[in-house]
């Protein structure tokens, strides 16, 4: 029971991992903040605790969700050190720094690069699908759209974050092998395909709603449908994707102003 309380306390503290993010040692104090209740429990001797705390003031940086794995494994190693079962305490920092990079790569590509965009694309799909009727037919749905994004993202990320901490406490270093067996790459690829399908569907609806028909002649008056302008801009935007987003944003604004000035 006491253990479950301690782990839950540490889990809550992981939300503050980056509260003192700094350019010199990045997440070091956040890491210490999460680990402190555990160190308080295992080191009753003040001097030994001080040494353990100082061990973790060095550079540390990883993905904030995946850090839970490293926190739990480090805690287990500290337990071994406190029990006298670890021959060299330097191994703790070695394991920490070895795991930080690969786990950051998994976290960045899965959570930042895949889950977040996919959850956002689902909301964007609904914005476009109901764009012409949000005011009249679905006033309550407008409120639901951003909540759908938050729900989808957090229903996946929060249990995973919780699970990372607990599974790593339980399995120790074996948790890395266990996580790697989860086929994250497969999940990541599937989510990306799903995201691509959603965004293509959104694009289809956008062209359908705003590209053709009456009321969709804001460019070139009635001469050509707006879909033609959208198509050209879409191709250019995709081809010029490597340019800065700010540059592209202002370029489109200036293009629109130029077209307006020329009466197109």
């Amino acid at each position, binding site marked *: 029971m006491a253990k479950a309380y301690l782990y839950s306390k540490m889990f809550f503290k992981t*939300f*503050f991992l*980056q*509260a*003192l*993010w*700094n*350019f*010199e040692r*990045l997440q070091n*104090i*956040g890491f210490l903040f999460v680990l*402190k209740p555990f160190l308080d429990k295992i080191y009753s001797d*003040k001097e030994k605790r*001080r040494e353990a*705390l*100082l061990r973790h*003031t060095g550079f540390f940086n990883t993905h*904030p*969700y995946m850090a839970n794995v490293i926190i739990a494994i480090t805690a287990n190693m500290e337990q071994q050190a406190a029990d006298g079962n670890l021959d060299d305490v330097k191994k703790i920092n070695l394991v920490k720094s070895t795991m930080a990079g690969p786990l950051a790569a998994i976290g*960045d590509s899965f959570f*930042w690069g895949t889950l977040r*965009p996919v*959850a*956002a694309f689902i*909301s*964007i799909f609904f*914005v*476009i699908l109901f*764009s012409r009727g*949000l*005011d009249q037919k679905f006033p309550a749905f407008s*409120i639901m*759209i*951003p909540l759908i994004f*938050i729900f989808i993202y957090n229903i996946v990320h*929060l249990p995973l974050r919780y699970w990372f901490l607990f599974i790593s406490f339980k399995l120790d270093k074996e948790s890395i092998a266990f996580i790697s067996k989860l086929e994250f790459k497969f999940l990541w690829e599937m989510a990306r395909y799903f995201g691509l399908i959603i965004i293509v569907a959104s694009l289809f609806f*956008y062209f359908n709603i705003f590209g053709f028909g009456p009321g969709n002649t*804001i*460019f070139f008056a009635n001469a050509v449908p707006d879909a033609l302008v*959208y198509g050209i*801009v879409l*191709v*250019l*935007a995709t*081809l*010029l*994707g490597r340019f800065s*987003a*700010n540059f*592209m*944003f*202002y370029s*489109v*604004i200036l293009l*629109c*102003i*130029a*077209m*307006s000035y020329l009466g197109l």
Partner: protein
Amino acid sequence: MITSVFLLAFIAVLCSLDVTAFGQFMLCRPIFCAPLFGFIMGDINTGLWIGMISEMVWIKAIPMGVAVPIDIASISIMATYWSCKYFKGTHEAAMWAMALAIPFAFFYREIDVYGRNFNIRIMHWVEDGINKNKESRINWGLFWGLFFSAARLYAFYLFAMTLGGLIFQLVYCQFPAFVVGGFKKAWSLLPILGFGAVLYNFRNIKIPFMKK
């Protein structure tokens, strides 16, 4: 509907703290915070549209490693706030608001970088405390880090909402008709730019049956 700039700046701070300082529950994403501000200010649909554009156009702006990208939470919050407060329901004004919010977001990034450098001092203070057996400095250091982040954000949002709002409406009223017409076109064209940015992001995806 909330109109107090002090309260709105506070809500904006809660959203922006989510970027780095606390949680990362994605409350800082434009698709959430722009409609939130739109809802609070009585025009959720403008917020949804601004959120959608920002989310797609700046899809590559991810804070990875030591990189501090442009703060898109502040772009979407400021743009929604200005357009809903001064010209509610006007699409042209919403686009001008987005265009004006970008320099403010760059300004905030500079403040953020300064703040992260300032955190080094707090970090050394904590380390010094541990050396002197003052372990409570770990909690206090974190508290001060969070407090200064919130204070910086609050000062920024108060400044941007008031002074930025003044610039926003004064300049908008001076625009000739063709510029306003251009912003009206941009309302429909910017989502397409966003789609382009998203599709570019998918350029490395491999279709299973086309894999070599």
